[in-house]
């Protein structure tokens, strides 16, 4: 067991209501990057420097993640879905002018594991159609392959058409009205979130099902395993059951951190139940404080003990970064024109210089946020601007690491390694 219990490297944490939490402004800022295709602007693939023909191949991703690691970022996330990308949230489309096609994010993350040494690797997976057992062993294997740098971003399948890819269940078809409002979106999907929380719980139990030290190799008694340290989980959900134990032994992190993106009450509760990091999408400082309060309420409602299980809060931002003032806004305007529409997003869209972004991050952070997940509008341009512009700026201000202090994702996030829940009895 390598974990230490207690308060690791000066973590902040949105652990109570914002009123109760005095934000520690000297604590290190946490910084992650969300990687998706050619970047988050739909016309990003048309920029010079983009590698649109390589978006589904390993070398492109290896270069991006190496860059993110040079920037000492906590982790990168990889977007994914079991349906083809679409400009509409709830329906497939037939557009041919935007990036279409994707590869499995867990496998991509695993491929990048031996090519990197410190950065956390957080693939997105579907939790509506995929078997919980397969999900749990996939993420556990990523943790073994990366020696403790795996995370997991579980995501429900909100697009009804994805169900037809499996043909074994149906999911609600959202309406135009619903997709215009995040609270309305999540209402018909409530059952999927409930089931999703069970999937996360089942996975966590599978991760715990082998205690540390279960492999004993006791030649005298001929036993490879101490079977008292390997447990059935007997998980009974509303829609599925899993007997266990896992086939994959306990991993370096014990439980890889779970990261979820949330925009409304139902997903805040989903995060409060099962996530270690929740990414939110505020549009200003006041909005950040308001959402953090909602998250804290969800934490309270679900009865989560945040002393034992801190919930880290990150804010998502789409970023266009250029050193020259005004250049980023002009670049965005040019991309919007190429796309034929102004960029729309769930997250706030930032255009400006690295120094201006640093100002914004520190301002918002003072509401009690732990960090940010930046979505580069154009890859590799805006990623490189983050790692070579923003990061040095934050380092100059003394709020970002100058070297990795840990080799695990939990370590970067200041989260202790949990003991197996089944170990207590023994």
């Amino acid at each position, binding site marked *: 067991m390598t974990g230490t219990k207690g308060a690791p490297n000066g973590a902040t944490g949105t652990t109570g209501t914002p009123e109760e939490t005095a934000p520690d402004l000297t604590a290190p800022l946490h910084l992650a990057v969300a990687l998706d295709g050619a970047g988050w602007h739909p016309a990003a693939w048309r920029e010079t420097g983009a590698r649109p023909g390589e978006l*589904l191949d390993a070398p492109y991703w290896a270069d991006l993640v190496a860059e993110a690691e040079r920037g000492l970022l906590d982790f990168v996330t990889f977007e994914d879905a079991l349906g*083809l990308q679409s400009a509409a949230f709830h329906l497939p489309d037939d557009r041919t002018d935007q990036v279409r096609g994707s590869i499995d994010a867990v*496998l991509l993350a695993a491929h990048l594991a031996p090519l990197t040494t410190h950065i956390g690797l957080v693939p997105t997976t579907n939790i509506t159609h995929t078997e919980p057992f397969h999900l749990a062993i996939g993420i556990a294997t990523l943790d073994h392959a990366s020696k403790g740098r795996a995370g997991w971003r579980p995501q429900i399948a909100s697009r009804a058409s994805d169900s037809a890819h499996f043909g074994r269940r149906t999911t609600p078809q959202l309406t135009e009205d619903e997709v215009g409002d995040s609270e309305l979106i999540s209402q018909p999907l409530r059952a999927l979130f409930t089931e999703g929380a069970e999937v996360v719980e089942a996975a966590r139990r599978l991760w715990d099902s082998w205690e540390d030290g279960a492999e004993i190799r006791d030649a005298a008694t001929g036993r490879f395993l101490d079977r008292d340290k390997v447990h059935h989980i007997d998980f009974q959900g509303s829609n599925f059951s899993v007997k266990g134990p896992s086939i994959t032994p306990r991993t370096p992190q014990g439980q890889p951190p779970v990261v979820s993106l949330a925009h409304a009450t139902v997903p805040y509760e989903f995060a409060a139940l099962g996530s270690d990091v929740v990414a939110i999408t505020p549009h200003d400082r006041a909005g950040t404080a308001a959402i953090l309060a909602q998250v804290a309420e969800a934490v309270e409602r679900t009865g989560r003990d945040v002393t034992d299980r801190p919930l880290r809060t990150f804010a998502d931002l789409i970023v266009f970064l250029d050193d020259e003032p005004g250049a980023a806004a002009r670049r965005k305007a040019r991309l919007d024109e190429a796309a034929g529409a102004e960029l729309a997003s769930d997250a706030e869209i930032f255009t400006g210089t690295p120094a201006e972004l640093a100002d914004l991050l520190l301002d918002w952070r003072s509401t009690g946020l732990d960090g940010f997940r930046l979505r580069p509008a154009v890859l590799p341009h805006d990623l490189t601007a983050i790692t070579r512009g923003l990061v040095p700026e934050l380092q100059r201000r003394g709020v970002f690491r100058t070297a990795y202090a840990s080799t695990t994702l939990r370590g970067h996030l200041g989260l202790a390694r949990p003991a197996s829940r089944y170990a207590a009895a023994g």
Partner: protein
Amino acid sequence: MPATTKKQVHLAAQLPGIHNVTVWSDPRSESQIAIDSFVRLAQTIERGKFDFFFLAEGLRLREHKGQVYDLDIAGRPENLTVLSALAAVTTHLGLAATVNATFNEPYEVARRFATLDRLSGGRAAWNVVTSYDAFTGENFRRGGFLPEADRYTRAAEFLTAARELWDSWGEGDIKANAATGEFVAAGAGRFAHRGQHFDIAGRFTTPPGPQGHPVIIQSGESDAGREFAASDAEVIFSKHNRIDVAREFYRDVKRRLAAYGRSPDDLLILPTANAVVADTDEEAAAYAEEISRELVSPQTAIAHLEAVWGRDLSAYDPDGPLPDIEPEDDAHFLKGHSVFRKGRAETARQWRKLAEERNLSIRELVIEVGGRQTFVGSPQTVADAIDDYVQSEGADGFVLVPHLTPGGLDDFVDRVVPILQEKGVHRDDYTGTTLRDHLGLSAAPRPAGWGGPGQPLRTGHDQPGRDHTVRDQSVRDDKETSA
């Protein structure tokens, strides 16, 4: 490669997951789960120019008398995930994952193999297994398992659906043309499959990798399994420890191919095997003996007997004779192990007869039936035996199971492979880049019209992907001259 009319020996290896084939008590035996073990073994066999690295699958830990079975190595990674990692630290080695057709869905499996094929530059293979038991099913949402009669019909339809998904993208469907603003061809990935087991439709997300379709492997020896292999697979992973049985199997399977319009070269038969190599034949024999005893501890011997007898035999002496009581059919004794197809009573009768004939104790009997080391001897002896086995049509090569993890094939690669190379039956270096190249297989079949109207069916290694290397014909030519 020297000009030769001899059959090439195809070599693969696996890091065993759950079995008593690895001496875990040996101090040189390292982790079965740490990535370093996988990397070490994969890089060793790539140095030996093997065709592929293979991983078996078991989706539930075995149980014995209602408890997790604790005497064997247990614990394994998720196959495709660990192979995707290995794709980053190897350049040519094929990467074969066993994935069950019963506890998965075609859309996901097709997507994950297309991903592995892309990430590896065309080195993916899928061992389609059909194990079906309710015991394993308890780990899955379907809760599902299938009656024996339905396993291969689901597997065959699963594979058909997967192929439809892979074929739903045509070469060049990703335009990525910044000048025209066209990223993707209209309708790319569109599919619809309706059958007895699957009714699915929509858009598939993932254009296939350089191989188009991963290499398809089948394991299993029933009549239905052999037919499935003859119609659909490109490699059979089989299990024989006697050359006469192996030759019979080889003849039978190769004969079945014609009915599907396929030639004997379209399906390679690779039995599992192990090799014990030492300076002399005598030393190797002694070491093999030692390994056998390490693998079958007194406790393991009794447990194996209990599995057959279906009753508690813990009072019996492992160094004494077999019990003369009859087996009972108690399914609780053993879960997740291979099934005793002949039935407990018949298996017990055969074991007892063998023990009496050869005067074997319980432990000696279990060692005997558990499968002796296949190839034992000096490097020259082992290389000659392997060569003979292949030239005499017992197999097209072997999937080697090292008895030590991860260093168990060091001697084989350093000392046996060079002799096979000298004999001209194993490549000096890779001549192609994809697993299909290494195996001498043609490109995956494409539906008529694939590649666009009026264009001929592609036959070479020219599917979309990052590796557009011109295909080296020598591998194929070698196969053809030997046929």
